[in-house]
């Protein structure tokens, strides 16, 4: 008899006023009892609508049934059949827009906590089971993967499982892409990311760090000189956009990528134990309303800023960030300045930012994307005291690969053009997926693209 309680088991978490001073994970995860109890809310629907919402088709009702029986390892193995990084997905997927949005229990009451259960299972496995991974037998074919973010890692895992010799080339000194440099420790502990990557290595995936494809090695050389049979490009959307405003080069103005890379990848929050510094003043303005903006604002608060503002040109309803992240930010004391847009930055003689002029906005007619267009209200400018600015208004793909690879078509936004179902590009044997194709999107969509491309590469090479 299923548990017919209408609401989800709440997620245990650190107190807002404690956690906004540390970088430990905010949510602490279900206990075994909570997980079993939550799992019993699943109705095990025959038509499994939740699975249609999952870009990597996790067998959701099946793994949840194992949890309900207390068979946590079996639940883990079930998830692993289709998802290479469950501990990551359980934490950072926007489940409310994916699997959980299709859950039948969500029609009357709250959906089953699928993401929380996936996370529980992955964490339980890491804590209790010694990994014994058997290396698949090589099939004699080689695939190179460019970029070790979520999409590249998924391709690598799926192809290694099928017997391919896979090498992942990563420009940074640590694999993981945005999981390492972008998403902060308090949302996604880096040990967990590295553990998931270590599992891939045990499966035989070779990861070469400090290799910049387009500089150290060219895409064509991967085929001609190095003998790869196919190449997958999952190099992401890492080029930061700036607003082009007066004063944007002042000291104290960062791109979100710089700010977060210093903090997350370089562990700037542990300076001077770690060598990379990160400057945060008393009054911090974060420009933008996505998850990156939330991460930057919450990091700034943790680094000791008194006032941290999210400055966003639309209203609260339009914030692109996950509702849960907005709520966490509010609880931690982040101040939302909505319907406001910066117009210029003001600095002192030494070249440091001291203020930011903002103009109030109102929402006009819907634009081509269907969102109501923000229009400035003339004469409403005001000057805010600001000593740090983080620009988090978006990223586009890095031009390095498209500039150095002949025959690879890209669109006007600089994104590689690839077939939606297969990831096939205009260049023979070259596939692409994730943010380098779609522009900045989500971890799970990047993984879904990787999964589809792995399938297509396997088909092509086995033809």
């Amino acid at each position, binding site marked *: 008899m299923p548990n017919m309680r209408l609401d989800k088991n709440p997620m245990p978490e650190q107190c807002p006023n404690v956690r906004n001073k540390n970088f430990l994970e905010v949510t602490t995860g279900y206990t075994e009892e909570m997980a079993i109890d939550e799992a019993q809310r699943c109705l095990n629907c025959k038509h499994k609508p939740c699975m249609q919402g999952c870009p990597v088709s996790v067998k959701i009702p099946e793994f949840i049934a194992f949890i309900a029986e207390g068979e946590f390892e079996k639940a883990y193995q079930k998830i692993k059949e289709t998802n290479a990084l469950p501990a990551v997905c359980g934490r950072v997927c926007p489940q409310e827009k994916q699997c959980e949005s299709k859950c039948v229990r969500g029609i009357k009451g709250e959906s089953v906590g699928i993401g929380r259960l996936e996370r529980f299972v992955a964490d339980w496995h890491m804590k209790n089971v010694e990994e014994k991974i058997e290396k698949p037998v090589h099939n004699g074919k080689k695939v190179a993967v460019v970029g070790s973010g979520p999409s590249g890692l998924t391709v690598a895992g799926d192809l290694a499982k099928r017997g391919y010799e896979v090498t992942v080339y990563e420009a940074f000194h640590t694999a993981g892409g945005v999981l390492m440099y972008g998403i902060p420790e308090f949302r996604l502990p880096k040990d967990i990311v590295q553990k998931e990557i270590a599992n891939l290595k045990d499966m035989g995936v070779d990861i070469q760090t400090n290799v910049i494809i387009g500089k150290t090695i060219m895409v064509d050389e991967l085929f001609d000189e190095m003998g790869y049979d196919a190449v997958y490009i999952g190099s992401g959307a890492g080029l930061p956009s700036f607003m082009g405003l007066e004063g944007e080069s002042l000291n104290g103005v960062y791109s979100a990528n710089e700010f977060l890379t210093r903090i997350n990848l370089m562990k700037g929050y542990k300076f001077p134990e770690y*060598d990379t510094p990160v400057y945060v003043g008393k009054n911090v303005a974060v420009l933008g309303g996505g998850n990156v903006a939330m991460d930057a604002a919450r990091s700034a608060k943790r680094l000791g800023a008194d006032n941290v503002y999210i400055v966003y040109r639309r209203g609260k309803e339009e914030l692109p960030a996950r509702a849960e992240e907005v709520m966490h930010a509010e609880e931690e004391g982040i101040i939302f300045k909505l319907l406001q847009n910066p117009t210029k930055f003001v600095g002192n003689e030494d070249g440091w930012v001291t203020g930011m002029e903002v103009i109030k906005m109102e929402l006009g007619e819907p634009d081509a994307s269907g969102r109501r267009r923000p229009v400035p209200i003339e004469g409403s400018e005001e000057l805010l005291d600001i000593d740090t600015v983080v620009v988090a208004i978006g990223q586009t793909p890095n031009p390095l690969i498209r500039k150095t690879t002949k025959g690879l078509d890209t669109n006007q936004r600089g994104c590689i053009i690839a077939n939606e179902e297969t990831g096939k590009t205009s260049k023979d044997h070259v596939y692409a997926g994730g943010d380098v194709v779609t522009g900045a999107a989500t971890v799970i969509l990047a993984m879904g693209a990787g999964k589809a491309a792995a399938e297509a590469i396997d088909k092509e090479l086995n033809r």
Partner: protein
Amino acid sequence: MAYKIVKKEVLNPQIFLMEVEAPLIAKKAEPGQFIILRIDEYGERVPFTIADFDRKKGTVTIIVQIVGKTTKDLAQVSEGESILDFAGPLGVPTPLEGLKKVAVIGGGLGTAIAYPQAKKLHSLGADVTVITGFRNKDLVILEDELKKVSNKLIVATDDGSNGNQGFVTDMLKKEIESGEKFDEVIAIGPLVMMKFVCQLTKQYDIPTTVSMNPVMIDGTGMCGGCRITVGGETKFACVDGPDFDGHKVDWDSALKRGKMFKDYEEKSCEDGHCRIGRTNRA
């Protein structure tokens, strides 16, 4: 993966040379490009210009001036030991083809960075005048190497202790006024020196390329920490440069941005945060 130091040589009390085993980078390196290194797990990522490379041996040479925490730590790494990360080649190579008569100017450590440019120009058959400047004669580096790759070498010292007193700008001015017709000046060194060289060459309308050296983190264009203003536009020195038209660079803004982390750099250098005793070198 670690990168072995196959040769280490002290050039003067503040400057040392390291030849690093990095075959993939050696294969592609060109004058004007740089690498980013990290000594160990605690380290920061710091850019160094490729001072030389040997494609056959698979090595890349960097020349380091001790100025702060990381360079001090790097000086502690001995020949035969390794560092953890070494990535490149980064940046756009200096365009040197087609130049006929060039003045290559190096200030202090910039001399080491100007060496590969002079060497390549010389091999391309250009007439190369090298002007280098140091505070005193004990700091002079690479004199013999530069002699081999230049038609004329002028080594100046601020205090005249080598018998040739003056700044590199004084020397360049003297050359220009004595009738030397340079079709390009390439200036590499401290920002202030490059700024003054540009002010001078502007008067004579000589195209001038400078090698910018802003703060960098990734070095691949993903953060914009190294952004500078050139001709009114924002450029990322790591991917658009590091070489730029010196007459278009906003020098004052670049000078100010260079000081952004000054307080932190001093704190990082204080006793107690020294790497000695916490080594986990590769």
